[in-house]
């Protein structure tokens, strides 16, 4: 039984160390998913936590300035008038912006809200509705056709 006790002790140490690393990793990289209107309502919390915000790129709002790119993101393209759903984003990260990042694209900005209300993104992701499906609208056409 001594062998099993020794073995068990080593297992505990290994698992313990890994759990400790995992906990550290979580607190270091955890990011809160929020919608734009939620971010606007968060108050001071929004400046402290790392956030990930989803939205649609407002057409014509992308401005390149050297390595810095700024644009306006909107929660719902159907309600473009509402200011509470708008967010100005500035990106100055090192990675290139994805090719899918363009007017009307669904974008995801990762970063913190600055005190001036501008979102400082360290990462931008953008997607067409699917990696595989270049145009999702056709899908709905097809389903409609089926009805």
């Amino acid at each position: 039984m001594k062998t099993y006790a020794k073995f068990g002790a080593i297992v505990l140490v290994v698992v313990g160390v890994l759990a400790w690393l995992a906990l550290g990793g979580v607190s270091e990289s955890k990011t809160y998913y929020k919608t734009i209107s939620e971010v606007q309502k968060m108050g001071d919390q929004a400046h402290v936590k790392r956030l990930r915000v989803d939205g649609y790129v407002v057409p014509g709002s992308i401005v390149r300035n050297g390595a810095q790119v700024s644009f306006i993101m909107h929660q719902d393209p159907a309600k473009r008038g509402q200011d509470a759903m708008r967010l100005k984003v500035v990106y100055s990260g090192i990675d290139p912006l994805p090719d899918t990042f363009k007017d009307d694209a669904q974008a995801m900005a990762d970063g913190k809200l600055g005190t001036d209300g501008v979102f400082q993104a360290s990462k931008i992701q953008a997607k067409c509705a699917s990696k595989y499906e270049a145009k999702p609208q056709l899908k709905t056409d097809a389903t409609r056709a089926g009805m």
Partner: protein
Amino acid sequence: MENIGALSILLAFCLAVYAVIGSVIGKIKKNPFLVISGERATYCVWILLTTASGLLIYSLLTGDFRLGYVASHTDQTMPAIYKFTAWWGGQEGSLLLWAWLLSTYSAIVVFTNRHKFRDMMPWVTAVLMTTETFFLILIAFVLTPFGILEAGRGNIVEGMGRGLNPLLQYWTMIIHPPMLYLGYVGFTVPFAFAMGSLITKQPGEAWIHTTRRWTIVTWLFQSTGILLGQGWAYAVLGWGGYWAWDPVENASLLPWITATAFLHSVMMQEKKGMMKVWNMVLVSGTFFLCIFGTFLTRSGVVSSVHAFAQSPIGKYFVWFLAIGIAATLALILDRTKYLKSEARLESVVSRESSFMFNNLILLASCFAVLWGTLFPVISEAVTGEKISVDAPFFNRINVPIAFGLLLLTGVGPLIAWRRSSVESLRRSFFWPSIAALVLMVVLAVFGVYEHPYALVSFGLCMFVAATIFAEFYKGASAISVKSKVGLIPAAVELTHRNTRRYGGYLVHMGIVFMFIGYTGTAFNQDTTKEVAPGGSFQLGHYNLKVTNMLQGENDNYTWQRLTIDASRGSTSIGTLEPERRFYKASQQPTSEVAIRRRLNEDLYLNFAGVSTDNQRAVVQAYVFPLVSWIWIGFWVLAMGTLVCLIPSKVRLSYARTQVLGMAEKHAKVTS
């Protein structure tokens, strides 16, 4: 035509259900005719799905844009090869590919075992066809590949198709998905045999012996699929990385990890009769993780860069997984008395315990990756807030795990079964340890001490490489003395005598090369510059001069290309031409990076865009040291795996010394 396709799928569904019922009832009622009819139904499923796939491919190639699937995933201007790959370019088609591959595997299994395992085979067929039925439900009733568009009925004008996502129009993407699927689907077979063996209460390891080749081949497919994905990300996505801990990537990695653990722990069962329950858990876990991966990539549960298709099939997967896992667990628990271990662990310093640690940390890694991937789902369920974790979390936990694994890769194969003496440890590991230490000291002197992780990694790579080299040298020199041949023919002979062992070493060597490549990331350099034609900039020891900016167009896309002369010091090292494309059908831009690949480092140029005034090009330049070793490592790994598949010249008998020992002890106690 689409009617024949849809009908084939529907019939295949009926026959798959029949195969399950026929096999099971035939087995229980001991009616061999029913069992055989179940097997024939399996062949029919294959024929029907081959017909359906053939029809879909024909429609894709001829551009039958009445079909919703064809119109969404191809267009007229696409090269034929990409029209063909559109088979798995979308949800419905790729599910059809899944189902077709599974039916192919099932037909092969049923055919090659038609005279063997009569007791267990009906259950194997039933398990295979149950899985098949599940996928056929999806493509027959939920997402049918043969749906017709409004336009197809002549109500509105037919389109020209929307095209395949241009990012996927790249050579590795032609084979990456089918490779991954071959791996994912293939694990159904060992799982089916394991279940068949459990249900019929088979003594012994028949299921492991018969599925050993399957397991190795599917593992190779999985590895190839993952590596092709990395190669694609590196060469196409323009950020120079090959792994981002994205949920889709993680989904492909999870079953690979458990499959790797399984490949190792079956050796414990074959040689010592230990870890029988554990192997059942691993093979089932791998199978369900394969299904889970398919679910994760298709249901939109977790958001990802790969931007999943939102679709209604998620709940079907949840049910299949829930029922499948519950049934498997119940079965394993019910049969634990047939899975008693035949030996005990004798020492912490032994081959047995190294296998257990290998399994422990592989599983820990699997768990951590799964946890991280599902973190948003779990946190939302627990705290109501959706929180995600990304790369730092995964790296923090997986880098130390990788080091542990690398160490075991060196230690495990050389350590003795049962227990190891200090003397034998010293003999085996003295020189490899010295080699590793010398390398680390030399690297530290040359400045690598700033990257402690890289230093440790290189040290471990050296250690493992030295142990593998020593093993080959030891065996080969013995043969070379005995039969008076050179060392290299002796090494080939040695490998041929025990392909499993020496093939395994080659796979380990491949892993070492890959780690050398991964470690290179610690020394990456990059810069982003806006340059007008004629301008130049510096990165590391490279001088890059933009000489020209061209543009043009063809049927598929318009393009802009930069010509960049690279030089080091005063010597020119060639011209690189990064390109940007804009695909017409899908209205999407892509970048075609230019890479100068060398063994020591890659020079990687991305034409990221044009400045607002249209005068200057935005160029991202990177230096990636040692990246090529990842791809070299993969080829070594693939070769090693193939060597493992060659039958050994010398038949090995698995003498279970430990079992005999136990029996003797037992005899003494009773007498």
